[in-house]
């Protein structure tokens, strides 16, 4: 199924900004993170269609997934 993946800040380094990707049915966000080699502990902000979800969240076709690192600097 097609999923749009948008990466932000440091997650773009060595990866991409946004990409249409294909995942098998019933894939979870954890599968997507593993595929992108992003540690679950680092991806503290996971949004699917603008709503915060956990890594166990199951993906649906045409979901828009946004992944942010936490930023504490000031």
């Amino acid at each position, binding site marked *: 199924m097609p999923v749009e993946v*948008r990466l*932000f*800040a*440091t997650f*773009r380094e060595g990866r991409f*900004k946004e990409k249409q990707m294909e995942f098998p049915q019933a894939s979870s966000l954890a599968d997507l993170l593993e595929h992108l080699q992003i*540690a679950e*502990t*680092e991806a*503290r*902000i996971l*949004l699917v269609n*603008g*709503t*915060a979800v*956990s*890594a166990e969240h199951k993906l649906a076709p045409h979901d828009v997934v*946004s992944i*942010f*690192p*936490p*930023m*504490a*600097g*000031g």
Partner: protein
Amino acid sequence: MGLTEKQMERYSRHVMLEQIGSLGQEKLLSSKVLIIGAGGLGSPAGLYLAAAGVGTIGVVDADRVELANLHRQIIHHTDDVGQEKVTSARNKMLAVNPDIAVKTYRQRAKADNIRDIVRDYDFVIDATDNFPAKFLINDACYFEKKPFCHAGVLRFHGQLITVIPGRTACYRCIFHSVPPPGTAPAGSQVGVLSVVPAVIGSLQATEAIKFLLGLGELLTGTLLTYSALTMDFRKVHLNRNPNCPLCGKDPQITQLKDESQVAENNANRKRT
């Protein structure tokens, strides 16, 4: 009350804006903004809000100026190293604009003091550099119903969001709890490009002025991200989280806690 002749001149470029005018400027002069953190984000925010004529500005910071602060914290000068940050910041803001009042709080924002400080202000700028403080400010502003602008920076990147508590997505709606130690580097450990907090802190000041004057559209329900390397600004729409532990349907957080003490517990708790 009306503006004096000198004020008409000082703020003339504001006054000539149809959306501000002399009434808008008077409104700014009677407004109060609290800046928590007099560092990379707080420097431009403090200087611009002072210059813009926000009548009362509070500054909270417990630290002293260090040499390693100076490449980005432009409110502090070389001669200020060793000086209390709140005093250094106050001196520069009053030098820019003696028209305003600057209140200083030389203390760390904590569960037992933050609500009393926040209560006196119309808008709060979170310019802190650590997660426990950011969660504390989010929660305190929620309980005190104070609008605020959150921001964070890291390396070449920054992000900010404005929160109207109880009405728009809060920091916990998207972020839930303090990350466990070691999973989220602070700027002091990984570095930050000097101008990144300047961009983001100026945007926080912009949000404050817009809120005070009721201008335009705020960054509510919207995270604005900035990457200096690609000069890429992006808005990400954020929904309120019905499972938010603070502002959701079944809140678990009903009073303020110092997050540093509870971070470990939260780290072991599953996110919703």
